Every structure is written in structure tokens, then in C-alpha cells.
């Protein structure tokens, strides 16, 4: 196929082969012998982007499509590819630009009166809008990467059994990556109802041998929990809370991570006093008899489907986009504070210009040029 009507806008040769790995391998070997080389990861998309075939957001979307691990992630990538994300970002960008143009028009034409009442409220509304979009990133990311889940608790509370129960619930094991260290094991399963992937990390290997290692174990558990999307904290329902349990609970409370307290051994008489867990998600199960595992999965699904990320909303799935949006929100917050403190509006304009600059980086626009155009489009200024 000849350029430019190809994916990369370069000449492309495609081979359609008979099935079977051996024939594929031989075709590939022949091509390499003739001077071809294997593409680097994402190289075709990179070339498509560099040749102007697709824009940056679209290029990122293609990469997401390729690596999409769930139906929802695939849909989000499709949205982005079709420009829905760009539209949403553009809307946000335009609303900031309008506010900015109002300030700038008044500066450049000081003797023409322009109404600027309610600026603080408008900036606040834009900030909340940006916040809403940013908040979809958490869900967007778990759609793409799966829910990174850490199971932990003291030894012998049934962590490994619970892992096995969860794996047994859905035989569709997506990947099986051996633990990077001897004592951490990672497994992935797909949840039934929302199609999300649960990446389970079992900290079963952390064992108490002496006091020093115990403290190291708690420390490591805390680190793992801090980096996770979800912690399944397993407690033994048939025993009273130990000091170690209490320490773990207080550590978890200090974190920002979602926690579900799984009280195991519901088949035995309940001795555990769960009053100190008031307000937290608690579920009682019996790993031994596989009771209530369905409820555990339902609770997990609820924790990751609720909220603002409904099917209609655009999802932020790229860390780059989320980073820029976070900067946008910060700048808008600075603008809001400045407006509240009655700081002259040309200072507010510094923050708003920054916000526009960050969004412009997502959708590849020229913020300076757009601002000048917006001033002239929206305001009748000039001699």
C-alpha cells in the first residue's frame, strides 16, 4: 500500500499468511533477512503521529486500545480516538478562555465598561468542572490497568485461602505473573459484572519470626497498601483484635486508599469486636466454606463503579492527561483564591493563563493565539 493513504502515511507492505506459528515465523525470518527489522513498541503509531496522521490524544488512544484490559477501557479509548475527550477538554478550555478574554479585554480597553460580576463564582464552577473530569481518572485508570489490590493481615488469618476463593469465583485468570520477590504473589481475575480486572497481591510471605522482622513486615504492608487502589484487610473473626491488628488498622486509616475489612472464619463463633471499624466497609466471610464470597465481590464492584464515572462521562485514562488536569485544577484554585482576596484581576489572569496552557497541551492548541481571537470575538473593543 502506498503513502499517504496508510496508517503511518508511509509505504506499507502487509503479509497475509496461512495459519500456524511455523509459517509465520518463516515469513518473519525471510523479511528480516531481506533487511527488515522488528518494530519497536508503538512504533507504527509514533510514525502515524509524526507524519500528522493522528494527533497526540489520538495516538495515546491507540496505545490504550492496544493495551485495553477491559470493555470499559476499550470504550474510553474509543471515545478518545473519536475526539470525545478532546471535545470535553476543549469545552473546559473555552470556558477558561472566555473568562480570561473578559479580563484581558477590560485591561486592553480600560475605558470601556465590561461586567465582571460573579467572576469568583464562575471560576469556582469551572474548577469544579475540571475536578469532576479529573476524578474520572481514578476509575479510568482502574479500567485500563485494573484494580491493584493488596490482601494482608496477620499470618494465619486466611489470606491465601481468600485469594484462592476469589480466583475460584472466576476461572478467567487473565495473567499470572510470578512474584518479583519470593514472598509476594500476583494474580489477576476479571470481575463478573463490570468487567474490571482485579490485580491481587498477596503479602502472605510476610512472616513474623522475631520482633525486628515483624516491624519490617508492618512497614512493607503499609507501603504496599499506600500504592494500592484497594486493600483487603483480613481479620480473624474467631479471635480478639491483637495489638498488631490494631496497629495495622490505625495505619490503614491514615492512608487514602480504599479499604475493605474482610472478617474471615465466619463459620466459627464470632469473638472479634468490630466496633473500632465503625464507618468502614466490613464483610464477614468464610474462606473455608466459600460463604459470602459473592458479597465480597459485589462490595468491590460497588466501590469501583459508583461515583461520577457513569457510562455517559468521558473518562481520563492517561496519566499524562491526569497530570495536566491536576495542574489545571491547581491553577484554577489559585485563581479562585486570588479572586476571593480581591487581588487585581490581571493577577487572576496569570493563573487562568497557566490553566489554559496546561489544557492546550492536552489538545495541542496555541493558547496565546486563541486568547487574542477570543478577545476580539467576544468583546467589542478598540478605537
Amino acid at each position, binding site marked *: 500500500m502506498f503513502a499517504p493513504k496508510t496508517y503511518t502515511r508511509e509505504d506499507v507492505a502487509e503479509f497475509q499468511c496461512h495459519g500456524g506459528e511455523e509459517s509465520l515465523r518463516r515469513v518473519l525470518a525471510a523479511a528480516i533477512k531481506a533487511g527488515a527489522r522488528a518494530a519497536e513498541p508503538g512504533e507504527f503509531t509514533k510514525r502515524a*503521529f*509524526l*507524519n*500528522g496522521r493522528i494527533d*497526540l490524544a489520538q495516538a495515546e488512544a491507540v496505545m490504550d486500545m492496544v493495551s485495553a484490559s477491559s470493555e470499559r477501557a476499550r470504550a474510553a479509548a474509543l471515545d478518545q480516538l473519536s475526539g470525545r475527550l478532546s471535545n470535553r477538554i476543549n469545552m473546559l478550555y473555552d470556558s477558561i478562555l472566555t473568562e480570561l478574554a473578559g479580563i*484581558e479585554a477590560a*485591561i*486592553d*480597553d*480600560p*475605558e*470601556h465598561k465590561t461586567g465582571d460580576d460573579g467572576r469568583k463564582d464562575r471560576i469556582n464552577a469551572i474548577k469544579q468542572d475540571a475536578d469532576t473530569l479529573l476524578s474520572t481518572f481514578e476509575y479510568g485508570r482502574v479500567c485500563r490497568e485494573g484494580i491493584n489490590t493488596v490482601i494482608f493481615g496477620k499470618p494465619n488469618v486466611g489470606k491465601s485461602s481468600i485469594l484462592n476463593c476469589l480466583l475460584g469465583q472466576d476461572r478467567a485468570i487473565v495473567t499470572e505473573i510470578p512474584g518479583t520477590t519470593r514472598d509476594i504473589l500476583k494474580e489477576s481475575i476479571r470481575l463478573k459484572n463490570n468487567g474490571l480486572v482485579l490485580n491481587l497481591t498477596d503479602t502472605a510471605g510476610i512472616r513474623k519470626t522475631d520482633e525486628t522482622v515483624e516491624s519490617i513486615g508492618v512497614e512493607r504492608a503499609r507501603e504496599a497498601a499506600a500504592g494500592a487502589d484497594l486493600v483487603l484487610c483480613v481479620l480473624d473473626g474467631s479471635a480478639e483484635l491483637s495489638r498488631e491488628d490494631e496497629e495495622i488498622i490505625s495505619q490503614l486509616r491514615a492512608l487514602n486508599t480504599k479499604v475493605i475489612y474482610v472478617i474471615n472464619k465466619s463459620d466459627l463463633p464470632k469473638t472479634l469486636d468490630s466496633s473500632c471499624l465503625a464507618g468502614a466497609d466490613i464483610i464477614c466471610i468464610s474462606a473455608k466454606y466459600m460463604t459470602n464470597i459473592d458479597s465480597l465481590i459485589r462490595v468491590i464492584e460497588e466501590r469501583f463503579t459508583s461515583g461520577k464515572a457513569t457510562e455517559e462521562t468521558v473518562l481520563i485514562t492517561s496519566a499524562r492527561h491526569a497530570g495536566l488536569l491536576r495542574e489545571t485544577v491547581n491553577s484554577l484554585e489559585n485563581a479562585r483564591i486570588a479572586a476571593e*482576596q*480581591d*487581588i*487585581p*484581576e*490581571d*493577577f487572576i*489572569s*496569570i493563573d487562568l493563563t497557566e490553566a489554559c496552557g496546561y489544557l492546550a*497541551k492536552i489538545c*495541542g492548541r*496555541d493558547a*496565546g*493565539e486563541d*486568547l*487574542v481571537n477570543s*478577545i*476580539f470575538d467576544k468583546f*467589542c*473593543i*478598540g*478605537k
Partner: protein
Amino acid sequence: MDYDIIVIGGGHAGCEAALAAARLGSKTLLLAISLDSIAMMPCNPSIGGTSKGHLVREIDALGGEMGRNIDKTYIQSKMLNTAKGPAVYSLRAQADKARYSREMKRILENTDNLHIRQAEVTDLTVTGGAVTAVVTDMGIQYQAGAVIICTGTYLNARCLTGERITLTGPNGMKRSEALSDALGRLGIKLLRFKTGTPARIDRRSINFEGLDIQEGDAEPTPFSFSNSAEDIGRQQIPCHITYTSSGTHGIIKENLHRSPMYSGAIKGAPTRYCPSIEDKVERFADKERHQVFIEPEGEDTNEMYIQGMSSSLPADVQLRVYRSIKGLENCHITRDAYAIEYDCIDAAFLKLSLEHKDIKGLFFAGQINGSSGYEEAAAQGLIAGINAVNMLRGKEPLIIRRDEGYIGVLIDDLVTKGTKEPYRMMTSRAEYRLLLRQDNADLRLREKGYQAGIVPHGTYMETEKKRKDIADEITRAAGVTVPPTEKANAFLAARNSTPISTGIKLTELIKRPELNYTDLKELDGGRPALPKAVIEQVNIQLKYEGYIQRQMKQAEQFAKMESLRLPEDLDYNIEGLRLEARQKLNDARPGSLGAASRITGVSPADISVLMIYLERRRRAKDGE
């Protein structure tokens, strides 16, 4: 050689160019179509205003004439935007047009090394890729090492009032015809731009009763850093404000078909900043009325400039339109409004020094580069004048960066981005405007003017003294703590400021919006006596420290990209660059990676590719 430098045109660009060249010791000739139109103001009677005031301040800091000339000839002075932050304070003065022009001519006539002569330039001689002479309509050839073209709106100009078209320059002046063709023969691409001016009205026919009065500032601020308020004190003349009516809009709508803008007679690209009244009525149909300013054109004339009412409607319609405005019901028009169309060049073919990329010694400045406005023109003229001398002397050109001055923004925008309409300076075009204030133009640029040789040593030393005083006072202030005394809290209460219960650093207290450094002297016993200009700088630098720091960081990043030089002979057919970017970059041949990133059609991805390419090239060279 007859002259070192020849300047074509005696407008605001031409005057600054010729004065700069002559003051730097180059033998200079200024040729103008009419010596009566030296520094003429054919449109509005004011100098300065938002962002333009910044330009005038910068011109003054760099040793230009405009600031001093308006200080001598203003009839009203006003600092605009004082309710906003110091970055957008903007000085504007109403000029006595005739005196402004006469005074500038007097300066030119009395400058050593400078000849002025009435003549129309009809041709340029270019030999071996360098300009060597100009030819006038009298058939006389003048040889020169450099030529600066400052022809404003005169090239192939047409003035349009309704169906009537006159082949003149502004204000009925003789236009220039042959020079356009001469530029075309040199392969210089010409664009067609359009601008316009409102009617002038006899003061005696205006009923000022009931109109808002706009007075000047009680204590006027001089444009020139060399002048003090006392130096320029004088009786000021007020302006007035009125509004268009529904009647005005009705007449315009009924007669729109007779406007050359709408009939298609005008081909030039209009400026959005200076819309005609018919444009405003059409584009902002929901606006019930538009503001109109009545400004005197001078002390000794009854002609009044009607700002906001530029028009190209036929004269009979114009009269009805103007008479539909409150206060102007019985007005007599002294000069009709008109639109003017003219040739200008695509400044993308210039270097940042304003020299043509391919024709050595040929410089362009002012409205011919696609700008609009007296101040924009003067700024370019000054830079072109200095750089023509630098070129002849084999010195590096003077280039003001975007983070150093509005002049830098102006020239970079014109040269790097190019413009599709008459370009007007705006504060929003300056990315680092908190650093580029009108109050610190001397601190930013005097040194550059001194190094260029145009700012005298004494003037430069004054600025350095000021810089040191500011730094010393900021250091001193950093060590001052205000104790929570009764006196302090009474002072704060009087200014609606929260009382203090513990000692607070002066540098913290000053950050409260309701306080300023001048007043805080009451709580700052050890403060030495300091000039007002020093106090002003200390106030701004301490009060807005956080924002200033942020902008300085941004400016540092910008400067880094600017310092990554691109070789002039670089072939941009680089693998990975998009085709559009290759073409644009090969055409523009930007001087730095930063400039490359500002070219329309060059994306951030192209810049990444370029950075990787340059790095590879550098390593390959190092490996050699």
C-alpha cells in the same frame, strides 16, 4: 559613499530610525514625501495607552525620542488601569498634534550627522545581495551602506469614503507608487492591509452639556524617565464621552450596502482592533450603544477627533450618523472619515534585527511590516536604526527578547509568526507582563541602550544608582519586624486591616492588599529618605513577590529555549518532521529552538524531533 544610512519615510518609525543612526555617529539621510508631515499623527491624537504606553517607556529607556517629545507636547495625561495591578498600569497622553509634529521636526533638524530632504524614493539598487543606493523621483541616486524603509501606509495607498476612492496616502497626502513595484522586483512579497480613521468635527458645533467629562491626572506621570512630574506640569484639556443611539445603528444598517467594506471594493485585510462603527454595529448587534470619545486635536485648533467612529460610509451618510449621537446633533464635519488600503510586506522575511534575510543592509520598520500604531512604528524604527549601524560596524544586532520587553514581543510576533491583519500591541500578547511593567522599563533596558551606544553614560549611571537603591532598601526591609504596638494596630485599623498580636515581618505585612509601602513608613522608623521611583519599585517587588517569582521561573525556561541556537544553514528536511513543519522551518529559518516553537504550523512534536536531531548532531560532532 554618500551616506552610511538612508531612511525612507519621516513618520514615527523613520524619525526614530534616523535619530538613532545619526546619534550613533552614522552619516544619515532621511527622505520624506513631504517635510511638513514629519511625525504626523494622521489618526488618533494620543500617544500611549495600554501596552503602547509600555512601548513608549521602553523607547525612552533605549534612548529613543518619542517619550520626550510627547512630554513636551501633551495636552492631557492619564495613567490607565490604576485599579488593577502594576503590570497593566498604562500611561496615555493626548497630544497637540501640530506641536508634536513640529517639535519632532525641530529635533531632527538640529541633530548632528542627520540631513532631511523632501523627495519620493522610486527605486532601490541592490548589488551582489546587498542594498547600495536609492533613487528618487528627481532621478537622483544616493549611495548608502544601509537603507531603512519606513513608508507607513503610503505604498499604493487608496482612501475610501463610500463610493468615492482617492489615490492618496493618509490625510490626502501624496502616495508612493513606484516603490511598491521596486520591492516586488526584488522578490519581496507584498500584502494588502486596511485601516481607517473617524471624522473630525468643529468644536464649536458640539453641545458638551450633559456629556461625561474625562479629565487628566492631577499629577501627570512623564513618559520619559529623564523627566519628573514638575518638569512637565501644565494646564490640561479634558476629553468628553458620549454614546451612539438606536438611531445611529438604524442609519448604518440602512446604508451598509454603500460601504466599500461590504460592497467588496476594499480588498485589504482589516484590523480587528480598530473596527469601523459599521463593523461594530454588525458584529455586536445586541449592543444597544457604543462608547464614543471626543478628543481635542490640539490647543490651537477647533478640530475634534471622534474616537470609536471610524467609518468608510459615504460622506452624506456619515453626517447623518454623526448627528444621531448625543451632543453632535448639530455638528459640522471638518474632515470625513475614510478607510485606507496600502501595501505592506510579510515581515516573516525579516530577521529579528529587522534586516531582510537575503538582502544585506535593507531594513524595514513600522507599518510597512504589518503593524499599526505610532508607538509600534517608533519602537521598530529605533531598533532598525540601531541595528543598521551595528550591521555597518560589524557588531551583533540589538535584539530584545520576549521576556525583556514589549518591543521584543512586538518584533518577534511580526517576524516569527507573521500577521494577517494590522498588528496592534496588547498586554495579553506579553507572556511575562508582570516582569515587563511600564514602571521598570529603565531597569530592564537602559543598560542595553547604553551598550548600544545611544544612552549617555550619565543617564545610565542614574539607572544603576536607582537599581542599587532598590536592592539596598529591599535588603533592609527584609530585616524589619513590626511589633504589635498600639500604634501599629491603630494604623492597621485605619486601613481596615486585621490587627496583629505578635511581631510581623514588614515584608509579610506589605503583602496585604490594603497596605502600601509608602504608608508603611509610619511603622518603619529606620527607613531612609528615598526617591519616589525607588519606593514604587520596592512596593511592587515586595508586594507581588510570589507572582513575580513564578513569572521569573517561566521566563527562565523560555530563555533556555531561546538559547538553543539553530544554525542559519540548517536543512529542515529531517526525518520525523512533518512536511508542513519542514516547509515552514525552511522558509523561516528561525534563530533558536524557542523561535521555531512559535511558528504557526510547527507542533510541539516537531520541536521534540528537532531537539533529538540537534542532540544527535552535537554528539556526532563531539565524536569527530
